[in-house]
């Protein structure tokens, strides 16, 4: 008996795979990435009858072709890692389509267990199964489960252990494709066994043969032997002549035929299917007239939930970090200028605190997304928005991260996980920062009342947001024409029936993402915070000048002599054409860390305090020093340039490469510079 086994979990999207995975692993899960691709790898652990089980949740797929990354990842895992058991989660209320994947798994000689999930819904629909007979016809063990109610867990584990003990058989039950195809398959199998010995050591020869007839791109590329290539080409021609269609279509058809045959004998429906509740809800939700308003309402609620509700825990966290600051500072003697103290308080605590403070937002966001996905609404939302998004060159689902981007880019970029197509995802991630975030609002709130008369204030704010959106649209079009050339993915998506999600599954969803965020972003942001802190604190002005100055002048001095201050002065000539001076320059550099820093930096530079009253004073000082045109340009620059380091880091994390993160950073910065330059220069001709 094996003491340690690996079990892969496969299944269609919407089959309840995740809830089965959760049922088997509880909270003992962790998420990573498959090497080289940005497909999530979910692993979990369980124990049963003394056996330690590692569960690997494969990406949800409808089949195992070479057409998408997810399918390739799933099938390569099964072939390369040779899990002891593969569990295929099947939606029992929708068997025929779901078994298509199972047929392919059978063909791979995978040691298979089928879980007929959602069997409660199947029962409601009046379906009855002759499990024994079906099991014989399919040649695998079948267990009935209700994943989100944790029913069937024991039986499933039992089946898994039993199947693991049986081990892999050499010749397994196979699907008969009809004489013509079987004849050709036999020939190709022989050729492959002779000419591609290396290949057949790893892959079952019959599976290879079937894939070759299907003209599977990945398998075909692995064939080096000429006689095999010729044999395959001949077979395909021959079959094309007989069927007047590509062999792969006939093969698919025969698979369904096999499934249908097995099901007809074993599955009975006793209740006539009438308009289900799902259809009723849909008649309203994707209704021509009501669809869009309903969508907008739900998006507003999501937004509201994430940022308004998140405000309280956010404030609590801010409060906590403040207390922590004070406590740590308290360890040092009063008025101490210890660099360690500063490092800890101003660098570490404020830097890390600045990131952890996002956590409530992220958790709430993923709570909302998990809810929308699990209920099945997300699919409808994608469709309602698709027309609009399509005109720009994006997928309907892209709308959701964009909306969230108005609050904060960080969770928005993470939310792009709902986009399956990599090109779409990358394009969306790259332009997301252009949707003006909440942090920038602090800058607008400072400048606009200072420089614009009341009746213009609203319109100017709107203008800024609109410019952001317009730029985003232009950039997407540009990206689509150049870097991400290609047809937009054809839109085809399953509309799952509406379901009532369980709190447990949503909670796990939510927690997983939150933890990942904390771990990854937190560590790098910690390092960057320390670096920025050092750049802001060193070098220090000499003691004498410090003693001579008052507290506020002292702050100013420190900033001027620090690296950041010096860099600010150094770049002044470069930013003068934009209407900026070194003071703005310095604030902008600090603001690369986070836009909220911009305002506090300016306060320091103009040596005003940080309270509400002093903001008023700051406005007066700004008014005295700059023109409305410059103010507008400052806001413009802040709008277009990278919102914060966290964004760049999250971009790296979600795209899986530094290239895109840096590309985004560079592109946004250059765009910001150029556009602000043009606006300022043109503007100064008129104003």
């Amino acid at each position, binding site marked *: 008996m094996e003491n340690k086994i690996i079990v892969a979990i496969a299944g269609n999207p919407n089959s309840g795979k995740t809830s089965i995975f959760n049922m088997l692993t509880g909270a003992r899960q962790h998420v990573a990435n498959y090497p080289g691709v940005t497909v999530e790898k979910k692993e979990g652990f369980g124990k049963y009858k003394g056996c330690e089980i590692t569960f690997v949740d494969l990406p949800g797929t*409808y*089949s195992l*072709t070479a*057409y*998408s990354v997810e399918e390739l990842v799933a099938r390569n895992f099964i072939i390369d890692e040779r899990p002891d058991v593969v569990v295929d989660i099947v939606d029992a209320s*929708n068997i*025929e*389509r779901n078994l*298509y*994947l199972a047929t392919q798994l059978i063909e791979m000689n995978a040691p298979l267990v089928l879980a007929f999930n959602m069997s409660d819904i199947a029962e409601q629909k009046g379906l009855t199964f002759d499990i024994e007979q079906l099991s014989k016809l399919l040649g695998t063990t079948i267990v009935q489960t209700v994943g989100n109610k944790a029913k069937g867990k024991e039986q499933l584990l039992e089946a898994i252990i039993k199947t693991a003990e049986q081990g892999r058989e050499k010749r397994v039950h196979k699907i008969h494709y009809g004489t013509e195809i079987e004849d050709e398959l036999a020939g190709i199998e022989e050729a492959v066994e002779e000419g591609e010995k290396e290949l057949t050591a790893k892959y079952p020869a019959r599976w290879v043969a079937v894939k070759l007839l*299907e*003209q599977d*791109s990945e398998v075909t590329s692995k064939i080096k032997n000429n006689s095999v290539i010729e044999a395959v080409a001949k077979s395909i021609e021959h079959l094309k002549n007989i069927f007047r*269609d590509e062999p*792969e*279509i006939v093969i*698919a*058809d025969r698979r*369904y035929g096999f499934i249908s045959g097995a099901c007809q004998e074993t599955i009975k429906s006793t209740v006539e299917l009438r308009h289900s509740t*799902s*259809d009723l809800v*849909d008649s309203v939700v*994707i*209704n*021509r007239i009501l*669809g869009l308003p309903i969508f907008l309402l739900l998006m507003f609620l999501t937004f509201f939930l994430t940022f308004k509700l998140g405000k309280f825990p956010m404030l609590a966290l801010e409060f906590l970090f403040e207390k922590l600051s004070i406590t740590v500072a308290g360890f040092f003697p009063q008025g101490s200028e210890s660099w360690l103290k500063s490092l800890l308080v101003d660098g570490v605590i404020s830097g890390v605190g600045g990131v952890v403070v996002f956590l409530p937002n992220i958790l709430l966001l993923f709570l909302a997304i998990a809810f929308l996905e699990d209920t099945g609404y997300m*699919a*409808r939302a994608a*469709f*309602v928005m*698709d*027309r609009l998004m*399509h005109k720009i060159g994006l997928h309907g689902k892209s709308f959701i991260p964009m909306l969230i981007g108005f609050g904060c880019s960080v969770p928005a970029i993470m939310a792009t996980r709902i986009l399956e197509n990599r090109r779409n995802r990358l394009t969306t991630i790259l332009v997301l920062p252009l949707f003006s975030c909440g942090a920038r609002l602090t800058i607008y709130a400072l400048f606009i009342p200072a420089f614009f008369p009341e009746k213009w204030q609203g319109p100017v704010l709107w203008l800024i947001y609109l410019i952001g959106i317009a730029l985003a649209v232009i950039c997407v079009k540009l990206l689509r024409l150049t870097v991400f050339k290609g047809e937009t993915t*054809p*839109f*085809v*998506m*399953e*509309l*799952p*029936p509406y379901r009532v999600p369980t709190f447990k599954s949503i909670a796990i969803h939510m927690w997983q993402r939150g933890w990942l965020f904390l771990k990854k972003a937190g560590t790098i942001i910690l390092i960057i915070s320390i670096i920025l802190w050092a750049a802001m604190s060193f070098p220090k002005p000499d003691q004498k000048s410090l003693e001579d100055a008052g507290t506020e002048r002292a702050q100013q001095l420190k900033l001027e002599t620090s690296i950041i201050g010096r860099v600010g002065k150094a770049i002044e000539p470069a930013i003068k054409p934009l209407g900026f001076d070194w003071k703005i320059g310095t604030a902008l550099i600090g603001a690369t860390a986070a836009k909220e820093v911009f305002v506090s930096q300016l306060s320091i530079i103009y040596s005003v305090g940080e309270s509400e009253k002093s903001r008023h004073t700051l406005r007066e000082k700004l008014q005295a020093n700059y023109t409305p045109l410059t103010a507008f340009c400052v806001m413009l620059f802040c709008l277009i340039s990278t919102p914060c380091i966290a964004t760049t880091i999250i971009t790296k994390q979600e795209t899986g490469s530094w290239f895109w993160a840096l590309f985004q950073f560079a592109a946004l910065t250059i765009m910001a510079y150029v556009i602000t330059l043009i606006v300022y220069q043109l503007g100064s001709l008129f104003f």
Partner: protein
Amino acid sequence: MEINNRPLSVVKAGEKVRLVYVDAGHGLRGRLMALGLVPGTILTIINNDQPGPFVISVKNTKVMLGRGMANKIIVSNIAVKNE
């Protein structure tokens, strides 16, 4: 009797048709087949009111399609057998 092949996009909601073939590349065809759209399958049109979504029911599943996609799926009347 006329075969009556036409693109899916012109079929009205409530009608049932038979899939003849899909005018698309390998990968897309494969994806559609995995969703149940194999030649000979019966499709029921659930929703086809522009600008709303195009929704069909195939093998007990509801599938949403873009207009472009619906144009590439060629169907015919069920009454006609192409054997």
